[in-house]
Every structure is written in structure tokens, then in C-alpha cells.
């Protein structure tokens, strides 16, 4: 089981905008470089990109959840 971790501390968002669908859902496939969410740190948004390919088994972090740098956001089966 591989993991996608937050590169920064901040607030994790699973959607590009509140009224849009999530970047990825549990069970979706993910390729290297795919955006799986955003981390907002001090009003600046940074894309979280997957560095691994596989299937997202589960998002560990919820939408709008405060996260720390290195915290697991999603688990991936490769």
C-alpha cells in the first residue's frame, strides 16, 4: 500500500471549487502527476500531485480538513 502525503501544512481541499466535483474519488485510478487535491496555505493554493500510479483505495483526509506537512491524504494500491 502506497500513500500520497501533503507537501505543506494547511487546509486540504478535494474539489477545485466548492460547487465542482472532487478531483478523485475512492476507487478512481491515479496516474503520476494527477492532481488529487489542493492545499491552501496562507491564502495560496498548491496542487497536490500523485507521485505514484495505481488505484486510490481510500482518502484519509476529508475535504476542508486541516493537514500537516507529511500527513497521509490518500492510500493507493499500485
Amino acid at each position, binding site marked *: 500500500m502506497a500513500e500520497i502525503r501533503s507537501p505543506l501544512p*494547511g487546509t486540504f481541499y478535494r474539489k477545485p471549487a466548492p460547487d465542482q466535483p472532487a478531483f478523485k474519488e475512492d476507487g478512481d485510478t491515479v496516474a503520476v502527476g494527477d492532481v488529487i487535491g489542493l492545499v491552501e*496555505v496562507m491564502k495560496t493554493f498548491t496542487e497536490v500531485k500523485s507521485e505514484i500510479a495505481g488505484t486510490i483505495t481510500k482518502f484519509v483526509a476529508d475535504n476542508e480538513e486541516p493537514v500537516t506537512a507529511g500527513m497521509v491524504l490518500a492510500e493507493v494500491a499500485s
Partner: protein
Amino acid sequence: MAIETLFIANRGEIAVRIIRAARQLGIKTVQAYSVADAESLAVKIADEAALIGPPSAAKSYLSIDNIIEAAKAAGADAVHPGYGFLAENATFAARVAEAGLTFVGPSADVISKMGDKVAAREAAKAAGVPTVPGSEGRVASLEEGRKIADSIGYPVIIKAAAGGGGRGIRVANDGAEFERLFSQASGEAAAAFGDGGLYVEKVVHPARHVEVQILGDGTRAVHLFERECSLQRRRQKVWEEAPSAALPATVREALTASAVRLAEAVDYSGAGTLEYLYDETSGDFYFIEMNTRIQVEHPVTEMITGIDLVGEMLKIAGGGALPHRQDEIVRRGHAIEVRLNAEDPANNFMPFPGRIDALRLPGGPGVRWDSMLYPGYEVPPFYDSLLGKLIVWDETREAALDRLGAALSELTIGGLKTTLPLFTALLKAPEVRRGEAHITWLETWLDDNAKHL
């Protein structure tokens, strides 16, 4: 009725500043805080603190329900909104008043009038305050647009009426280019916003950003001279001064008088700032917008006038009349403020939250430090990056620049990256030294110099 217990609906350095002003007036303070701010300096130094929600600002510092409920539970009789968050939200001001509390600022009606660009422009024109020449509202056709552009003179800016974020904006340097760009801009605006309506406005370039601080009691208003904030990056001010190095005395007089006229015309109550663009070549100034709150850069005005602006806000909100006549407000010397942000200037100003593991502060005459930092403080990643403001004063601009250099050399903020190296480098730039920078100067300078910061 004078305020007895003040609820502070903000955080960071401005919360600390408000607590200090309130304490000086014998007002009890209740500090609002989110879960992420439980260890903040404001919470530590206020008389009381009230939890208003989780770290997310939307559920804490922007939650009108949570704030009003907490303010009432704490027995507060007034709410200070600070800057940012709900400070210019007319609904918030109205809800505070409906709850039987005093909002420290102007009425909801004045906030909504001056917060609307078109309404504020109309109010300015009615008060005889110059605005940026342009179309009054939407331009009906290409022919009408061309006529307006020809009469105000090129270059002109073409803006989407429904726009935002820079989309649908074009600059035309002559009539032929105007005709070509107008059609393009209209198409782009229609595609992006479902509304092809356009405005036409004169381009003021090179422009200086000057702003006038005013205080009003609902009947009478006074000005506290101007500030200049031309050093900006992405429309964020990084360095502010008072007075402006660009204004001749006659322009200063006309500018400050226009601000008082507009403030009195809307029966302004509290502290406010009228922002202008100043064209050095022609000597013309143009009103752009009003901020109906205290501003980040207010300390430079306090340093040259000796007036506690936040204290005055609290007295006015408590029902007091303005204590000063205009001729009693005098300025002396020159003040400069720089904003220390938790950002890495060498890496595109990336935010850099973290723990303050060392803190050494400058001091001496004419040096002021407004901040919420203390050694060991963990700067949360959830809010803006302002860590503190270093403010210096001296008799002349030249001496104030030297004092700033000395103060910066004493300042150490350890544990994270800050904008300190930017200011050390800017002090060596001849354009800054001579006071010549206009509003787009810093971004151009950063293109060449940011990598060395």
C-alpha cells in the same frame, strides 16, 4: 454610550493592536479565537477569550452567527472587526447592530455604499472628487466606445463589466487598436461571464498610490494627511510611508480636502481611507476606492500625527464627537512601515508558516514593532502571512530610511523565511532612496532581483 467591554472579531497583529488601544481607554477586552489560535498573543494578553470555531476562517472569523453569539455570551457591548475577514461586510455590521451591540465602524448603509465601486464613484463625483476618466457604466456600442476613448485620450483600458481576475482586460494605445481590441474583449467577456458588457477607462501610468486617512463622527470629518503605498506586489502593499514623497504642497492640500468633502458627504463615522492614483506628470489625482475600516498601514499616520487611530475609532463608536479641529492635527517628520510576511521572497514569495525559534527585536527612538510574535509561537498556516510591521520615524525621509536600515539589521525572526531580505535590498535601490517608485516599479525590479534575495 462609551464602550465598556469590547469583543475583538479578528486575529494576528491587529487584534493585539486593538487590545492595546482598548486597554489605554480602560475598556475590557474579549478576544475571539479559532482552535488554531488558542496560543496566540492576543488570547494571552486580552482580559478574556472566546472560542468561535475550528481553524477554517469560513467557520470561525467569517462566521457571523458564531461571532455574534460569542460576543453576546461574553457580555460585550461592542465589536471591533479589525481589517480583512468581516471588516467591510455590511451584513455583519447590520447583524451586530440588530443584536444590540455597537459596531466599531461606519453604518451598514455607508459600508455597502462605499463598498460598491459604481456607487462610490457616483458619491465621489457628487462631492466634486475627481475619478478616473472613463465611461459612465457600460458602453453601448463600438462607436460610442471609440468616441469616449478619443475624448479621454490614449492609452485606455477596456474592462469587462462583469469581470474580475484580470480576464477581459485590454489596453489600447490608439483608435485603430481600440476598435480591434474592443470586439475581442467583448467576445471574451461574453464567453467568460455570459455578459459582453464593457467599460472604458483612462490608463493612469506611471501612477503613485496615495491615500488619505480620515476620521469622522457622522457629522464632521477631518483628515490626518496622506500615506503613499506605491511599493506593491500583486496589488499587495509591502512598504508604506507618510507623507508621500511625490506630492507638492498644493496637491496635498487639494487631495486631503477632497477626502474630507467625500467623507462628510456620506456622513462618515469612524476611521476610513480614501485611495487615489496620482499622476506625477500632470499633477492630477483620481479617487479609486474607499476602505471603511482601519488599515494595515495606519501606524505611519500615527507616527507623524501622534494620534492613536484605533483609540479614536473606539471613542467615536462609543458616541464621542471628534476631539480635534482640522488645524489641531499637525504632522511632523517622516514614517515608513515594512510588512514582515512569512514568505520566501527568493522562491516566488511562497508562504512559509512554522515555529518562531528565535526572535530579536530592534529598538531605540523612532522604532516601533506591531506584531503577534513571541519566541516559540507556531505561525498557523490557515490565515494570511503577516507576522509583524516594523515602523520607523525620523525628522526627514532620508533619516527615516537610515533608521529603517539600522532597525532591519537588528531584527532576527528565526525558524521561517520572511520578507526581511526584500527590504534590506530595496533600501539600496536608487529609485526607493529617491522616492521615485510608482505602482508597477516593484514587480519589474523583482523580475531582475528576486533570485538574489
